[in-house]
């Protein structure tokens, strides 16, 4: 039955009756109500309701009644709610009950300058947090070296396995394809000068000095750094970090140290592995697509790639390993206490790690160039 509302002015001329009939439920929207605003503009002193023909009602009816009541009250018109269903009367009373007062220092909107200011302060805060965290890690490693750090050795073994052997399949795939792509691109250019054989130099040097460590680091940032941030962030949400602290166990020693150590140890190994797989990718293209003999390609690679190049890559990868673990652990440990915060911490860990990896790599390249390695 369609919802209907009829307004009727009583004989005294001061009382307005609103007669509701039909089903006033959300499924029967829109409701057609008389213009109460206009009706209340006259000499009305009292408003009452007749719901004897009302079949069904839900919150949408309550919304209308609450609006009418509020309007009448604002015009100092008395409202007689006795004609309303008992449920609605009780709900109306509940809505009029004293409620909690929202805090006034909570800002919903801010202008451009406020936003710029907030972002600047946040960046400054983050930089400070990074320095403070670095200091705490340094102290944690001092405790580690003096045997005072509390951590579980099985945790360290687990993380060594997790960021070492477990990461090999993805490192293999990506590194092989990087070597493969480098060889292809190099071949097109070098062929123009009849210098196809130098593809081996290009792939070997690029993989060992740059792409091997960098690709391994970027993969680990997405894989392990994100996982560290999510794990530690969730531990923050579940108050597991607080539990460690109250037990007198330093969360940095217990949670961060094993993760960071594992990644710093494993990253150079992954980088060397990545170097070889990348060179294999180039070898595959050199031999099968460019018709370079396998022995010639091998000889050329051995000549081009010296131990120094490998060392450059290893030094970089140790630092990259630290950066990935640092960002993952930092963002996880400073995570807020909601699901949303865990998501933000994870994203931020990956983005920060990749940015720092690229910046550090540029710095290293410049430095090694200056010192002639």
């Amino acid at each position, binding site marked *: 039955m369609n919802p209907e509302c009829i307004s009727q002015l009583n004989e005294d001329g001061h009382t307005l009756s609103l007669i509701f009939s039909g089903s006033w439920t*959300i499924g029967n*929207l*829109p409701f057609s109500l008389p213009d109460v605003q206009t009706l209340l503009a006259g000499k009305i002193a009292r408003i009452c309701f007749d719901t004897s023909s009302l079949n069904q009602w*839900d*919150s*949408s009816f*309550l*919304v209308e009644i*609450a*609006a009418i009541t509020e309007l009448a009250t604002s015009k100092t018109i008395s409202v007689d709610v006795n004609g309303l269903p*008992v*449920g*609605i*009367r*009780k*709900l109306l009373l*509940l*809505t*009029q*009950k*004293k*409620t*909690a*007062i*929202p*805090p006034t220092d*909570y800002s*919903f909107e801010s202008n451009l300058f406020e936003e710029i200011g907030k972002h600047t302060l946040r960046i400054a805060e983050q930089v400070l947090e990074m320095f403070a965290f670095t200091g705490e890690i340094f102290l944690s490693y001092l405790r580690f070296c003096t045997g005072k750090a509390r951590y579980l050795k099985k945790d360290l073994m687990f993380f060594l396995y997790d960021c070492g052997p477990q990461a090999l399949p993805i490192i293999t795939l990506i590194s092989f394809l990087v070597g493969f792509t480098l060889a292809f691109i190099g071949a097109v250019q070098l062929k123009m000068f009849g210098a196809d054989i130098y593809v081996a130099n290009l792939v070997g040097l690029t993989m060992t000095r740059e792409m091997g460590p960098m690709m391994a680091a970027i993969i680990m940032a997405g894989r392990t750094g994100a996982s560290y941030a999510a794990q530690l962030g969730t531990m923050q949400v579940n108050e597991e970090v607080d539990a460690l602290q109250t037990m007198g166990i330093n969360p940095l020693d217990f949670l961060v140290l094993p993760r960071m150590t594992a990644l710093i140890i494993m990253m150079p190994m992954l980088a060397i592995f990545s170097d070889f797989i990348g060179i294999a990718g180039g070898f595959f293209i050199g031999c099968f697509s460019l018709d370079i003999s396998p022995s010639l390609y091998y000889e050329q690679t051995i000549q081009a790639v010296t131990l120094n190049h490998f060392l450059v890559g290893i030094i970089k990868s140790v630092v990259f390993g630290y950066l990935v673990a640092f960002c993952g652990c930092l963002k996880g440990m400073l995570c*807020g*206490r*909601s*699901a*949303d*915060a865990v998501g933000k911490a994870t994203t931020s860990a990956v983005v920060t790690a990749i940015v720092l990896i690229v910046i550090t790599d540029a710095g290293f390249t410049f430095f090694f160039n200056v010192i002639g390695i």
Partner: protein
Amino acid sequence: MGESGCGKSTLLRHLTGLKRPAAGDIFYHGINFWERSRKKRIQLMQQCGVLYQSGALWSSMTIGENVALPLQQFTSVSDELIKKIVDIKLALVGLKGFSNYLPSAISGGMRKRAGLARAIALDPEIVFFDEPSAGLDPISSRMLDDLILELRDSLGATIVIVTHELASIFAIADDSIFLDTETRTMLATGDPKVLAEKSDNSKVKQFLSRSSSVKE
């Protein structure tokens, strides 16, 4: 009601359609829940509201957005009316003016009340509560119990509460099921006040009298 580990929350997960029972059936209005199509099950679930222990508000949304989501998803109501309904629901639970706040900006008790506003957003026929007073101080707990009763009387909804809080049990329940940890079955049913006085089961008596042992 029952001791920790007796399966109260598991039963609730079954009742709210989150878990398929390994044995037995769930009926709503005589309809076997798990024999229905997924679409029908979703329709049935819309007739239920659930308040979780922590409130389970979506942290990236404001309180108002949390309450509005079921209305936006399952009704064709205009945004303007949704806003009005959200305001009314928040006023019902004593959170008028908190619509634009994020869950992280309010207290645990308020989060529960906001969760309740979300649970009743679609005017459900049944509202399930999982340990509503858990983590609340006695005053907030009592206020929440009163609010549950007021909403039950005014909305006419059936209230199902999983709890081991005796104060809440005696204040709210007019019927109860006592679950047993060992046998994982029903040990007693009935009005908790009557059970506390007249039950001949020692475990039920012990639980409802809050004693560590029962004198036979």
